[in-house]
């Protein structure tokens, strides 16, 4: 099974070039684990990066640059961080597991509304990545966006604006969109969501559901 809705070329280029913020990069890397097509695209972008390095004019280095690096070759490197095993977080690709402080069920889930919970994984440069768990058949209260919102399905699926999103699919919302995605009836929907500004709730539900203002 592979994804139907992919991150945009701009996101993939920014990820490959290294300019993307950490939260968005987490979403792209998690998508890459599930999508051979986008992996090939990022490999091409990295090849462009390699070609560009080789085409750059060389800068002058200090006279002892090589000697000082050679002198350090035998120093022991700091050990690499072990990656988190799949135990306790079934179905989550490695890049995402690295960001979980605990197993899925032991995470500090916070209730946002009936049938909807979230846990924030990281915030960097004002952009936040969180896991969102939406009960089967539950509709997320209608909301608009102060900025962009990227949502990737990890388990289950949801329908939004007449499209169906399944595991690996990335939905994008921007400033113009006001929407109310609905989780599929068959199972709980687990998503990784990245937002760069607080969501704006619209309508009466928004006024009633205060915790959502924390989104």
């Amino acid at each position: 099974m592979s994804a139907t809705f992919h991150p945009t070329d701009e996101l993939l280029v920014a990820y490959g070039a290294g300019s993307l913020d950490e939260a968005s990069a987490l979403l792209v890397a998690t998508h890459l684990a599930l999508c051979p097509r986008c992996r090939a695209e990022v490999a091409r972008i990295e090849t462009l990066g390699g070609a560009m390095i080789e085409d750059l004019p060389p800068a002058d280095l200090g006279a002892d640059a090589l000697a000082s690096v050679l002198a350090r070759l035998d120093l022991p490197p700091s050990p690499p961080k072990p990656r988190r095993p799949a135990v306790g977080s079934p179905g989550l690709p490695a890049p995402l597991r690295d960001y979980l402080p605990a197993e899925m069920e032991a995470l500090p889930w916070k209730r946002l509304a009936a049938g909807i919970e979230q846990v924030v994984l990281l915030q960097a440069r004002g952009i936040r990545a969180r896991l969102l768990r939406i009960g089967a058949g539950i509709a997320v209260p209608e909301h608009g966006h102060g900025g962009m919102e990227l949502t990737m399905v990890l388990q289950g699926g949801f329908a939004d604006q007449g499209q169906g999103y399944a595991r690996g699919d990335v939905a994008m919302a921007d400033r113009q969109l006001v929407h109310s995605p609905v989780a599929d009836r068959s199972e709980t929907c687990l998503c990784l969501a990245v937002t760069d500004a607080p969501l704006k709730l619209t309508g009466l539900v928004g006024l009633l559901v205060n915790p959502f203002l924390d989104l």
Partner: protein
Amino acid sequence: MAPDMGSALAFSFGSIDDVHVIDMMRRRVEEKGGAVPDQIRSVEPETGATPMSELLVAVAQSGDRQAFALLFQYYAPRLKTYMRKLGTEDAVAEELAQEAMLAVWRKAASFDPGRANAGTWIFAVARNLRIDMLRKEKRPEIDLDDPELVPDPAPRADEVMATQQSESRVRAAMCGLSAEQTEVVTLSFYEDTPHAEIAARLKIPLGTVKSRLRLAMKRIRSELGDDQP
């Protein structure tokens, strides 16, 4: 006579240039009985590897310091230029270039010449090191051993060679881009905030940067015969 460790070190960076580095690599290749490459990016017909990739493999397999010194002489000055283009001051750019080459030495075992050329791999190491050291952020990346990883479709026989030559193919595809497209693709590598800085620098709307980038990537995909929906 092949250059030994001492003579590799004897070059000061004021005097050594690419011609010397390429010449030393030629002699290493000849010494091993291989074909003499015309230039560093040429592809060995038998292995599909570039001379730079062979040097990196020598570092990985036998901790070959002379091979590392040659890689350093070629890439370290260019990595410093790369760091400076990202707005890093001279002294820090030099430190990052040196640290990146140290990371190249330490991570060499994970270099797979069947997946990437040396230049591509070294670019990725330098990019990640800068994110780690300068931005103090982690770099989320896939793990090729991850059981959740959806595997690549099996490549056709004719695609294996294509992977090994992908760098020259991507370069050729780049030549097919318009000047404006080349500009936004190139600038994408020299910024820390996606695309907004390019728009400001070129004094064009953000939407124009994005559409040029999309067209450029579409063009590159179709040049490489990889244009899927």
